[in-house]
């Protein structure tokens, strides 16, 4: 059965086309002129790439543990500085945005709430902001 418009052309190579107004030819990483969905997608990818980078950074940092107690204690002195703790807040922002937007994408993409993507973005954004403020207070409060 082949009654979906354009289904016979899906296997052809070519530019990836997406719905939406004003998507720039420069690609997903250019948020200019995008609707909310395009901006959310772009930021989701930026945070995702950042988290992949952090995964390997984290493994690298944890490798210091193989060097014994002294190398870890040296790292702890650096990791508990104000500058380092501020980077932790940036990390938590990335985790919260990527995770909460992932929930939105799963709900919309699976068709469960396909017509509420804007409301989901804003409501999950409120939850994320509250969680980020709480995490910030906890991190700086533990200093």
């Amino acid at each position, binding site marked *: 059965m082949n009654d979906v418009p354009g289904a016979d052309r899906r296997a052809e*190579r*070519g*530019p*990836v086309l997406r719905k939406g107004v004003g998507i720039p030819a420069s*690609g*997903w990483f250019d948020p200019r002129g995008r609707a909310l969905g395009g901006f959310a997608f772009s930021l989701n*990818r930026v945070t*995702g*790439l950042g*988290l*992949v980078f952090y*995964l*390997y950074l984290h*493994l690298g940092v*944890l*490798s210091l*543990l*193989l060097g*014994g*107690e002294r190398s*870890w*204690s040296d790292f*702890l002195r650096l*990791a*508990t500085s104000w500058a*380092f*703790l501020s980077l*932790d807040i940036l990390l938590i922002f990335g*985790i919260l945005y990527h*995770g909460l937007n*992932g*929930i939105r*994408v*799963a709900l*919309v*993409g*699976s*068709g469960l709430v*396909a*017509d509420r993507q804007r409301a989901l973005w804003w409501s999950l954004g409120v939850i994320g902001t509250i969680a980020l403020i709480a995490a910030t207070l*906890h*991190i700086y409060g*533990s*200093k």
Partner: protein
Amino acid sequence: MATIKTRPEGTRRRAPARAPRAGWSWIATTLTGIGLLILLTVHMVANHFVVASVGGLRSYRQILEYIANPAIFTIEAIFLLFVTVHAMLGLRGVLLDLDPSPRVQRWIDAGLVALGLLTLAYGYFLIGTLASRA
């Protein structure tokens, strides 16, 4: 602004058709993502939010005791698996948006499988070594 009614009176708004899926990779990304929501929350809270130390970071001795707990070791091992699979699928999605040829796509898939296996191997070596030191 004037509007034109297109839906017959007394009928309910119909849910729109499902958004298109990218197939198995979308499903796998979503399932690992759901798993990560739980595992990452456990990981973050257990490591950084219930520890009474500066910056929520454990001392060397605390980390060894933590990872040597069989339940924690299992959770962290599953977390590493989920996060690696999710990361590789995400990277694959970004790279495939560049519209590579089928041949390059096969190289991308093979490269990401290799990178994922290396990541898992090193991660398990790391937590296994630390657990054995406790």
